[in-house]
């Protein structure tokens, strides 16, 4: 338990430090040139999922996806927070028409990037940085009884790379960006071996928080792997406001006795309001 508290404190320190460093590095003059954006996007996600704790079958389907983002950026810095939400039904690739999974996925992330390379030949900027993500997938099997509810929840520390390429077409400002991240550390909570509840909740200590931390495990890439890529095309409309079209691909796998893996494609359209 003490080790887990230390991990949480370290993650909190990393996040708050990145935030303070980011603001500390920004001079007053630079702060006045910071752009703040509130972004919202909606679209669809093609979700694939196989949770071997409940079924050997790969479930898939088109789900509703939405995202909200608060971003702060200037010439050298990108940082902000992202909130993702996916909801819909998934079905196996079989002729069992009644097999159905209700899928709910949510994620919150905090990121910080600093420019590491600016190319002179072409206006390409490359950023490196870190992010902290908390995500959770919750599923309900329509044909199951006591263990119809299944879930996975992961808290990750990730390394990120971001490339931005602004360009003009017919005098209009566009930008295409690519962001990718992989986790270097994760704390993962899943149901117990033969239950739909985390292991420590089966014999509760009376404290939900203590039970939560006692149910999870620390993981590096051998037990938890994730790869997330996102392509964005932004078009500046007026007053620094933008519209954007994004395509993301996300894959993650949780190892162990009963592996869980998920892959999803997102196609989303959104707006970026500058303030």
């Amino acid at each position: 338990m003490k080790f887990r508290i230390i991990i949480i404190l370290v993650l909190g320190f990393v996040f708050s430090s990145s935030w303070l460093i980011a603001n500390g590095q920004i001079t007053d003059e630079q702060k006045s040139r910071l752009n703040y954006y509130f972004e919202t996007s909606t679209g669809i996600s093609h979700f694939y999922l196989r949770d071997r704790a409940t079924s050997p079958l790969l479930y898939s389907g088109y789900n509703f996806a939405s995202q909200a983002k608060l971003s702060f950026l200037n010439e050298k810095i990108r940082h902000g927070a992202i909130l993702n939400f996916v909801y819909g039904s998934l079905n196996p690739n079989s002729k069992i028409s009644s097999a159905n999974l209700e899928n709910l996925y949510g994620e919150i992330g905090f990121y910080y990037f600093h420019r590491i390379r600016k190319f002179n030949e072409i206006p390409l900027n490359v950023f490196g940085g870190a992010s902290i993500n908390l995500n959770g997938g919750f599923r309900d099997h329509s044909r199951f009884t006591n263990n119809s509810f299944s879930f996975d929840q992961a808290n990750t520390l990730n390394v990120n790379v971001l490339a931005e390429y602004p360009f003009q077409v017919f005098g209009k400002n566009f930008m295409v960006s690519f962001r990718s991240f992989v986790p270097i550390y994760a704390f993962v909570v899943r149901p117990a071996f033969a239950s739909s509840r985390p292991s420590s909740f089966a014999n509760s200590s009376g404290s939900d928080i203590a039970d939560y931390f006692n149910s999870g495990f620390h993981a590096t890439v051998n037990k938890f792997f994730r790869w997330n890529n996102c392509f964005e095309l932004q078009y500046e409309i007026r007053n620094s406001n933008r519209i954007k079209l994004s395509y993301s691909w996300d894959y993650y796998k949780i190892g162990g006795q009963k592996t869980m893996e998920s892959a999803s494609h997102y196609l989303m359209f959104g707006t970026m309001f500058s303030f």
Partner: protein
Amino acid sequence: MKRVLIYILTIIIISSCEKALIKPDPENTPINNFDYLWTDLYERYSFFEYKEINWSEIYLKYRPLITNDIHDTTLFRVMSEMLYELKDGHVNLSSPFDVSRNWEWYLGHPQNFSWEIIERNYLNGEYRITGALRNKVLDENIAYIYYPSFANAVNNYHISFLFNEFKDTEGIIIDIRNNGGGSLSNAKLIASRLALEKHTAGYSYVKSGPGKGDFVRGNDFIIEPVEDMIKYTQPVVVLTNRSSYSASSFFVLFVKDLPNVTIIGDTTGGGGGLPISGELPNGWTYRFSSTITTDINGFNIENGIPPHIKRDISESDRQSGVDSILEEAISFIKNKK
């Protein structure tokens, strides 16, 4: 610069490649389906040791009957026969054309209940239906409640209403014969309304790993009386038979040690393992027990809880329209006065 572009293009090309990372579904063959079912039960079924079942021997007995060219009905029959060996009413295999089951927990014993006899000869066709509870005050000033299934919800309003209606009776008979189970929360609610003080009724053990002895202690079954709600302090008799299964057995576990409660009838059907579900590569579903439940003395309730007073309905009584278990309960309450 060229190198950076190559890196970026490489990432773009190999991204979105879940087909390379996620394996296809396991091949839907009879052998794969059989092996998957056997393996999942081997890892997660909770009663092999208690029932002295050698699951590996069962595999050697039934696996030779499976080949990849057999029909679905043959596959279903063989897997059903294999599951039948577990002698567990919580074990079922569901296909689009049939559901396997083992109902020996009641078929091999006297029925000891007829709703027709109760409704015609004791309730005279007149009774209240309070939520899921059929109830009436019998001529002997004893309240009778029949609860057909714990899957039907009861709430504190129902219980408070009935306790108030029955406050001047000499006792209550709660009949859960032929109650095949349902929600444990309904069983716990009624038990908490009968309890006069907090007590631990039993313990649970949850399968925690694939090994035979891989169990962890689950949450104890603690029954706490509900504060600020009407209580009933007169004698309570619970009627059981072999068809009182699953949540009914848990209800008996929760109340059997209460000072004002007596169990009369036959041993309950059992069903002390919480069933969980799984799915085969061909889409068929199955369920099986994954926990163990004992009373506070370590008695495993899987094969049923014996009553305090054993009573059967004889064939002659049944033919005469007499429910001798109910008669025993009425006599017991009268003598308790």
